[in-house]
């Protein structure tokens, strides 16, 4: 397998992991809204908290994590960009 293909496989797998996390925080947890709301976090009902703030925060953290991870994959395969500025 060429370096290019290996790089793309890793990138693809990383994409899938990110999208699974994404689906968990955007869709899966809200399938169980009523059940989650019986629990509480910071005093808020949990499903309410997740839709008002929690999932949003999870997306932000996820995006920084995913960008850093992808940069590592770039580096491993020698596709890291030179800083031009």
């Amino acid at each position, binding site marked *: 397998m060429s370096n290019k293909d290996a790089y793309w496989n890793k990138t693809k797998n990383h994409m899938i992991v990110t999208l699974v996390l*994404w689906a968990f925080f955007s869709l899966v947890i809200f399938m169980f809204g009523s059940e989650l709301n019986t629990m509480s976090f910071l*005093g808020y009902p949990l499903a309410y908290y997740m839709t008002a703030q929690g999932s949003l925060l999870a997306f932000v953290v996820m995006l*920084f994590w995913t960008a850093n991870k992808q940069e590592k994959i770039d580096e491993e395969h020698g596709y890291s960009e030179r800083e031009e500025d």
Partner: protein
Amino acid sequence: MFKGNFIQNLPKIYGTYTGGFFVFIILMAIAEQAGVSAKNIGVMFVAFTVLIYAMIGYLSRTIQVDAYYVAGRQVPTVFNGMATAADWMSGASFVALAGGVYFGGYTYMAFLVGWTGGYVLVATLMAPYLRKFGCYTVPDFIGTRYGGNLVRACSVFVLFIASFTYVTAQINATGTIASRALGIPFEAGVWVGLISILICSMLGGMRAVTWTQVAQYIVLIVAYLIPVFWISNKVGGGVFPHLMLGDEVARLGELEQQFGLVKNSAADMKAAGVPGGLKYISGSHSGVPEGGMAVWKYLSLAICMMVGTASLPHILMRYFTTPTVRAARKSVAWSLFFIFLLYSSAPMLATLSKLALMDPNLPTGIIGKSISDVQSIEWVQRWSEVKQVFIADFNGDGILQLNEWFMRGDVVVLATPEVAGLPFVISGLVFAGGMAAAMSTADGLVLAISNALSHDIYYKIIDPKADTAKRLLVARVLLVIIGAAGAYIASFRLTSILGSVAWAFDFAMSGLFFPLVLGVWWKRATRAGAIAGIMTGILSGLFYLLWVYPKFSVPIFGGVNTPFLGIDHLRFGLIGAPVCLVVMVVVSLMTKEPDAATQKMVDDTRIPTGKAILGRQH
């Protein structure tokens, strides 16, 4: 004053600007104390900020193609994040989001998840690859990847429908805010808004829009957060509302029990003469509605907004302006961070505002009080005059019940500072913030449309030999025409007919999502597949909208149709996008696979280093 070039000095420049803005707020506060009228303070806030944007727009003028289309691809990560956040958060987000949460509670908040979760799709599936490709516009990518003028024109068609639906709503919002803040008629406000928008974008294209959007983000976030924190501290919600409103949310649950959540009949509301667009609270604030259909309604709306976000050209094109692919990825993360600051505050504002009105123990509470007392409150009178709030005593007991208090969603943001007794300088600040939010989104949209028309239709299809001066002239003329057309339609107040900004998301997802994703992730996708997918996707979505939305279905189909599987007019992308995917895959597999050159193009797109597919100037 500054050493080094403009880009290196950005933090200093915007730092100074932010400091200057705070000084201006303080000056206005002093002016208020000195007896300057509330109206004049509002005028000064809007005039001062718009003047600054115009100045930035003028200073960023350019005669270079790549500066005009992609800001010279030198916008640093964090600043591009701010610009995207301003581009993204529309006048509707600013003035209507908290109101939506106020009335819709948990169910409405599917929009919050949808409008943020979409960025995960942007970052993983689209932005870095489109940046590597080196395109100027979204149709530029589709036209080059699939090859040919027809597929390019099809994608411009989708872009036009989606963005134009959105832009009229934005110009409408600028008009509303300009008219309220400046005290002029709405029709005049629309044109004032348009001129402000054009000054920011016409001379410098993407470069000017980028630097004004950063300035607009700073104004809008300051204008949103100051009132939220202030009100929270004033009504005892805690120093940091986001982490401390648990008790308040619980208290709202108790109050809902106490007053009861009653649904008014349409006939009662009509008889009482409730003005259009005003709403009342009939659903729970934090409770999750029971049943599978309610869950599906939540999920389907979130899906449409997320996929739509990842297909909207005016957002995607912001990531064409970063220096590198790596910067494009990080920039998406920063964008969402800046968006998060506002979106996570909207539910807090809704909670505080609701509590201020509902809790009889608070001095601001009005529900459960006598109607004649409520009607003598100053802010109630002022907002009643302009038909933004309304009282209907359905049961005739002289006491204001929860279902008897009607309010426009915008009032939550625009009037809560007043209700909570904050000085007027805050209301002036909120006007400036709303104006910044509406202008920045309108700018991005008008530019997305006119760039696609000037680059993809005029230059690539009609006159490929045009020189730079001619191209930029055409781009600017189109910008003015598109803006004027948007303002003209907005001035008729057709928005109640045009429906919701959610439509823009559904249109974009119907026609653009899969052609973009598959263009990068599936080498086998062919030109014929893309053309068939785009057209069947957008047309099936459009047809379903006409069929399902009563205002269209009654004249066309002679009746109201029941939404299929609960897919109503806010969610018609769930029809268009799957049709697009299936048709695109089937037709692609039926046609000959793309040639070696195209396959190599896709290979190169996937790797961050190496030359862009399209040259720096093209």
